[in-house]
């Protein structure tokens, strides 16, 4: 006997992700999946964004790490509700983990749910977390060849944020090359150059998130 299934593997994850997206839509919360390699500056970027968005969007945060709660403590110190997920070895978050983590958050009181994924450019690409936008973070220190070397994560993202741009003069990172590769991999994606430590470029990214939040609300 042959059963023709013709269904996506990770269908179960995709269905859970859709349910999560519907839950976020119902309370007008924009879901953001923040991905990038370890040390690219995801948490520092998030700290800068939280400060910039104060009074405009109320954030809640889910921190995904293999172990520890260092990142969650940094977000907690800003007075932002945060839940830490420890994957205990797993290299990515999935929709089941996010579903469980959101139980500890008051989504109805929030405008923005930021999920900081495990630092990884490979495994995180395959898992829809129920977000509305995926932001991929790449730092000037990592090199401009990462888009071609890890195309899957860039291809499925809605925005590329180049971080640590204050270091650009000290590297051989070619912004033009990264920008051109991103246009080929994800023609619709937006690109931002920032230095989170200095605050440069953060207002433009914050404005974009406010726009995305408005679009989610009108679409809901």
């Amino acid at each position: 006997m042959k059963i023709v299934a013709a269904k996506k593997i990770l269908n179960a994850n995709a269905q859970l992700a859709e349910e999560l997206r519907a839950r976020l839509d119902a309370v007008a919360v924009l879901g953001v999946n923040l991905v990038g390699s370890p040390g690219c500056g995801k948490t520092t970027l998030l700290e800068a964004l939280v400060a910039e968005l104060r009074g405009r969007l109320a954030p809640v945060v889910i921190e995904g790490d293999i172990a520890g709660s260092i990142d969650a403590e940094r977000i907690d110190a800003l007075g932002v509700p945060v839940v830490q997920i420890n994957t205990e070895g797993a290299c990515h978050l999935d929709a089941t983990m996010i579903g469980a983590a959101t139980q500890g958050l008051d989504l109805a009181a929030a405008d923005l749910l930021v999920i900081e994924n495990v630092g990884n450019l490979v495994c995180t690409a395959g898992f829809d977390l129920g977000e509305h936008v995926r932001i991929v973070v790449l730092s000037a220190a990592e090199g401009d060849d990462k888009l071609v070397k890890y195309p899957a994560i860039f291809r499925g993202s809605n925005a590329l944020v180049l971080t640590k741009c204050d270091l650009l003069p000290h590297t051989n990172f070619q912004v033009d090359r990264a920008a051109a590769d991103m246009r080929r991999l994800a023609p619709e994606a937006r690109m931002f150059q920032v230095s989170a430590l200095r605050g440069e470029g953060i207002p433009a990214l914050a404005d974009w998130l406010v726009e995305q939040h408005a679009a989610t609300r009108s679409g809901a």
Partner: protein
Amino acid sequence: MHEVAIVDALIGQVQEEVRRAGASGRVTRLELSIGRLSGVSVDAVRFALELLAPGTPVESARVDIRQPKALCCCQACGSRTEIETVDCRCPRCGSSEITIEGGRDMILESIELEDADP
């Protein structure tokens, strides 16, 4: 090694499909399709199957994996060329004015079960 999580989900999905079809018994063959640009390693999938299949209905299944290529669509020369990797250049004319389609999906195509005893 997200392939372990993917294969774990796959085995659950196979069991669910078999149950929904009102069938039972050992799985003899699985057909999968894993796109070249899915970011998933077929070798790692096979390794994860060795790890996770024992004790499940797919334990002794033959697993056939198709690896569909992606399409490089060139705006300069108009060609549509199958590609296995991304190099951000049209393989025909070398132009960088390209977009890439497909090659990302992972699909459980079909499940074959051993014939039930008459």
